[in-house]
């Protein structure tokens, strides 16, 4: 169990970590997700012992983790640009962590050799052991870096943007493989990424970071379906934003009205988010909806992105439908559609126009009529 509490870290002129607390369970696969400058790499480096917080504590099973030097933390770190030793062969790179041990705890030559061979097979690089890093592709280098980190049998694997420098195809293959490896080894793994798809697909839990703070921590489906703050709404997935105002019978936006009022008369305005796949395109006339004009259709394989314009809100909306639905609904450029959200996340605005995350309201359409 790793307990991070109240971590602060300030660099010249900017707050990299601002009161970060987080518990990490053994064996968990955690993603630190955020835009650049959100503090996620700083947090990872503090766990690795390569940086230290200005204040706050990190405890591992009750012991002060920060007092332990990096080389004694039993962590395996995989760096963004791999940081391989370019003057050493693949085998020598992987064996490095074992060869630098004091002779009392250093495995014998043959044992090191056997362990390196096992790791080479595990990362599917057998036969490339005598090459130098410059002779390998990006994906191969990444796997060498991983094997090198695993060679010292760490308790925890830390990965800094592990797939950042790879091309799209290698990326997807490598992250599935990493997920399998994680399940096989049962290590605690923490990785930093700015790619939400990667975080949502790979991790057991995702911590979304922004400006040095953790905005939300939770399983991927919770992060996606129940975003805790406006930032999470906008950062994760695609989303349409519009505003709703209080009227006589509750909140409304140009004729569309979510039923209920969890705020019981407080607040006059709220910011609302709806995901592209949560827009119903052919709403029956018995339900309130917006009149929308279909401006563009972008066909992206199995999914079609529709660019809609709602005149009454003066708002451009993006809606996603399955490609085969295009012909099923007879969707054509320039046609008028009755569009209504199926599910909306709303945050009321306080007197200064700031959204209040703690007053979040997730609204779902009451009777899910097929779209």
């Amino acid at each position, binding site marked *: 169990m790793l307990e991070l509490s109240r971590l602060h870290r300030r660099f010249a002129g900017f707050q990299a970590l601002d009161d970060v607390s987080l518990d990490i369970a053994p064996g968990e696969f955690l993603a630190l997700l955020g835009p650049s400058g959100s503090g996620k790499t700083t947090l990872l480096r503090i766990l690795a012992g390569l940086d230290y917080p200005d204040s706050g504590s990190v405890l591992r099973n009750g012991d002060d983790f920060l007092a332990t030097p990096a*080389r004694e933390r039993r962590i395996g770190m995989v760096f963004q640009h791999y*940081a391989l*030793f370019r003057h050493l062969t693949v085998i020598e790179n992987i064996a*490095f962590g074992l060869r*630098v041990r004091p002779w009392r705890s250093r495995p014998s030559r043959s044992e090191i050799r056997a362990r390196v061979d096992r790791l080479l097979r595990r990362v599917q690089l057998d036969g490339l052991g005598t090459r*130098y890093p*410059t002779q390998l592709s990006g994906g191969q280098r990444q796997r060498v870096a991983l094997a090198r980190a695993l060679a010292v049998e760490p308790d925890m694997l830390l990965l800094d943007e592990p797939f950042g420098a790879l091309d799209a195809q290698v990326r997807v293959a490598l992250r599935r493989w990493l997920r399998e490896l994680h399940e096989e080894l049962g290590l605690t793994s923490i990785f930093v990424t700015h790619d939400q798809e990667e975080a949502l697909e790979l991790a057991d839990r995702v911590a979304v970071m922004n400006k040095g703070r953790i905005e939300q921590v939770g399983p991927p489906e919770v992060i996606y379906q129940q975003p805790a703050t406006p930032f999470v709404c906008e950062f994760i997935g695609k989303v349409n934003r519009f505003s709703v105002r209080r009227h006589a019978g509750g909140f409304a936006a140009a004729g569309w009205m979510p039923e209920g009022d969890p705020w019981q008369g407080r607040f006059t305005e709220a910011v609302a988010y709806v995901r592209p796949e949560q827009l119903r395109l052919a709403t029956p006339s018995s339900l309130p909806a917006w009149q929308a004009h279909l401006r563009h259709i972008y066909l992206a394989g199995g999914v079609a992105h529709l660019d809609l314009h709602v005149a009454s809100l003066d708002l451009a909306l993006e809606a996603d439908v399955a490609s085969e639905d295009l012909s099923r609904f007879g969707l054509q450029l320039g046609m008028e559609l009755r569009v209504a959200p199926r599910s909306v996340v709303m945050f009321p605005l306080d007197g200064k126009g700031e959204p209040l995350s703690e007053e979040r309201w997730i609204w779902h359409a009451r009777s899910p009529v097929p779209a």
Partner: protein
Amino acid sequence: MRRRVLPGFGLSFGYAVAYLGLIVLLPLAALAWKASGIGFEGLVRLLSAPRTLAALRLSVGGAVVAALINVVIGLLVGWVLVRYRFPGRRLFDALVDLPFALPTAVAGIALTTLYASNGWLGRWLEPLGIKVAYTPLGVFVAMVFVGFPFVVRTLQPVLSALERDVEEAAESLGAQRWQTFFRVILPMLAPALLTGFALALARAVGEYGSVIFIAGNIPMRSEIAPLLIVQKLEQFDVAGAAALGVAMLLLSFGLLVLVSLLQRWSQRWAERAA
């Protein structure tokens, strides 16, 4: 005919060969031709003379040791200049080039004044039994002085290009600081260190101006080979001077080839890049 992407190969290659021939090879050929004037027996007699051998040993041996010392000091100074930020760093950095810029005779006179028995440093060293001026040690000090900037300047760019994360990787894999230095940093610096060594060596072998003032030029003891050449010229023994020159040339060339072989080996990881 094969097409080339880079234009102008013929012209630029021609120029390069012509210049190399005119500026380097022609004078060397003239040297060899002059040297042949003393004949084989004369050459053997000249090179086996104890005075010649002593001078060559001092010039080449001193230069090798001086270059080695410079590698150590240069690494330290380069490291400090690249890795740390401190007030006066730029000034310090500019000072490194002084041995380049100073006329060698001025450097020699300055060093002699410092290390003479009544000089600022000599005054304190002499009572300890360390005589620098007018001894082989003085020759050596002058050689270190003139060779010093080469190591620092060849090392600096390589040092600043070293990635921090490679050191961090070594540390997180459990390496102690000294292990990181000897197993990771030093091997990556080796090619640059060898280049610096070769340059410092070449400079020190042929150094004349700064050495003769501090050397005292006592035959068999603190007399350098270039001085022997000058003496032979003054006695109009052009063939002898040239022969000695050729001998030095071959020695230096052999050393430089050795260094460049070492360098190639130290860079084997880059050579075989696919």
